[in-house]
């Protein structure tokens, strides 16, 4: 698949402060990529730069085959953006909003009507389409904003904190809809979020941002292998003293940081899952009764926190 986004060492400053600094990212067509990072990490700024709203001071950039610095309008014709706030015209009805944005996207009236009807049905807003947006709940506004972003069937979809302001039920609805729209085979989705679970559930790859740059990017397994190359394993045993079993385990190849947690629980890290069968054998030979062996893989949260509090690494 070709890359739809390719940017290298982009920099942008607001009032002299770097919002992006050496920001580099490549995204292939059809991928769903999460941009993770704390407030001020540069997620929203990167979306603005990629769509040609802000001009980077330096760096190379290509989005859908165009440079946003010269061809922002051509890029925006093929992208859809769900902004952090729904940013809808509250005094207009849902249909008037869609008609306005559809027209600016180059759609004919008939196309806007047909597509609006389909999407409003899917997003369960058809019955309220003639009502002013100011009468909508937050969840409805967010759904309508998503309809607006999808109206012209964009190749590249940017979703900026799509569920940050929603209650759990409305957030779940929006997440389900995102899962549905990202299933479109050629559509690429960039999802900016604080919700790590959301990124884990919805995205193929994750780019973790820190201080305006991508600190690490890859699939969860790639990030895990890079940031947490060791695997934590808990052994729960009975029948033998913990200290004795810990001593046996610490002699095994690949075992590190062996700790007795007490009450028959021993915790260690290994360099590979393949080491575990030999360790189980050693414990069985020592006549320990093994109740459970629990390899614990690093979660996205572990990786995220490690990267935010440590140096930067690039995959």
């Amino acid at each position: 698949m070709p890359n739809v986004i390719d940017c290298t060492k982009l920099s942008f400053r607001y009032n002299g402060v770097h919002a992006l600094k050496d920001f580099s990212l490549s995204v292939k067509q059809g991928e769903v990529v999460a941009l993770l990072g704390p407030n001020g990490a540069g997620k929203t700024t990167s979306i603005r730069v990629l769509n040609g709203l802000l001009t980077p001071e330096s760096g190379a950039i290509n989005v859908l085959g165009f440079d946003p610095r010269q061809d922002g309008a051509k890029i925006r014709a093929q992208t859809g953006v769900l902004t952090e706030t729904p940013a809808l015209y509250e005094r207009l009805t849902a249909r008037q909003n869609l008609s306005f944005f559809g027209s600016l996207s180059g759609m004919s009236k008939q196309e806007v009507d047909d597509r609006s009807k389909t999407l409003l049905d899917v997003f369960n807003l058809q019955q309220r389409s003639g009502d002013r947006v100011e009468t909508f709940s937050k969840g409805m506004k967010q759904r309508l904003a998503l309809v607006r972003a999808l109206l012209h069937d964009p190749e590249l979809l940017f979703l900026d904190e799509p569920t940050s302001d929603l209650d759990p039920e409305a957030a779940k609805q929006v997440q389900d809809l995102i899962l549905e729209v990202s299933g479109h085979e050629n559509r690429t989705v960039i999802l900016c979020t604080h919700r790590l679970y959301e990124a884990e559930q919805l995205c193929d790859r994750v780019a973790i941002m820190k201080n305006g740059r991508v600190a690490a990017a890859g699939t969860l397994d790639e990030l895990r292998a890079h940031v947490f190359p060791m695997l934590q394993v808990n052994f729960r045993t009975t029948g033998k003293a913990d200290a004795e079993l810990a001593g046996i385990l610490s002699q095994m190849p690949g075992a590190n940081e062996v700790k007795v947690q007490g009450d028959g629980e021993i915790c260690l890290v290994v360099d590979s899952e393949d080491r575990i069968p030999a360790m189980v054998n050693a414990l069985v030979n020592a006549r320990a009764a093994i109740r459970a062996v629990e390899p614990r893989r690093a979660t996205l949260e572990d990786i995220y926190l490690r990267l935010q509090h440590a140096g930067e690494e690039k995959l």
Partner: protein
Amino acid sequence: MKWKNVFTIAKKDWIEVRQNKYAMVAMLIVPAIFVIIMPLVFTLLIPSLDVAPQDVISSDADIQFFVERMPLALRQYIDFGKPMESMIVIMLGFMLAPMFLIMPLMFATTIAAESFAGERERKTIESLLYTPATDADLLIGKVTASAIPSILVAWIGFAVYTLILNLAPYRFFQRIWFPLPTWWPLIFWITPALVAIGISLTVIISARVQNFLGAYQTSASVVLLVVLLFTGQMSGVLYLSVGVEMVLGAVFWIIALVMAYFGFKTFNRGALLTGKS
């Protein structure tokens, strides 16, 4: 630039302004005062009171001064032998003329402030900036949204004013006396220039202030130009004859073009987002 985008943006802005009750009330009160209430007061109410029109003129030092200093070219439109007629011509035909310009200016600055700074205040500007519309589409669309209704309101207001000024005091004049020749350049030459100044100033200011009120209050200061014209005329310094109006209009157009140039230069997506140009 795509004209379809320009008119789509203009139409949306106008629908939004119409839905804003406060803006609409503010915009309708001024035309109502200048176009309907004041003409009716001078043509129906005052004549029905037991006041001699020559007393109205002679009792006010400002009005008397205004009449005494009036150039011959303008005095020819006043028949001093007919007190009621002359009072109406002086008040509604000459003295009120500069104030008539306030109406389109208010429309222009209100809609433009609502359209540029108002969008940023309501945070809708970002979704608009993410559309394929170019900077030129956005600027011309929003300028169109402000300019067309402002000029139209001036022209329609002028038509209604003409109707009232000829019908209401018909018993005194017994003829169609309005518009005076001085009104044509005022409405069709000076008004569009002032509207252009008001909008250009709002565009420049809107890139720097964060909300509607800030933009509106600053850009509405263009009304000072009208007040200057009014006081200039009242103090006998500057009478709005056809010649003076043509020159004034040309000066206003030059100012408008220079400001429009700076407005166009400073207008870009980044400035609208970050408040810096």
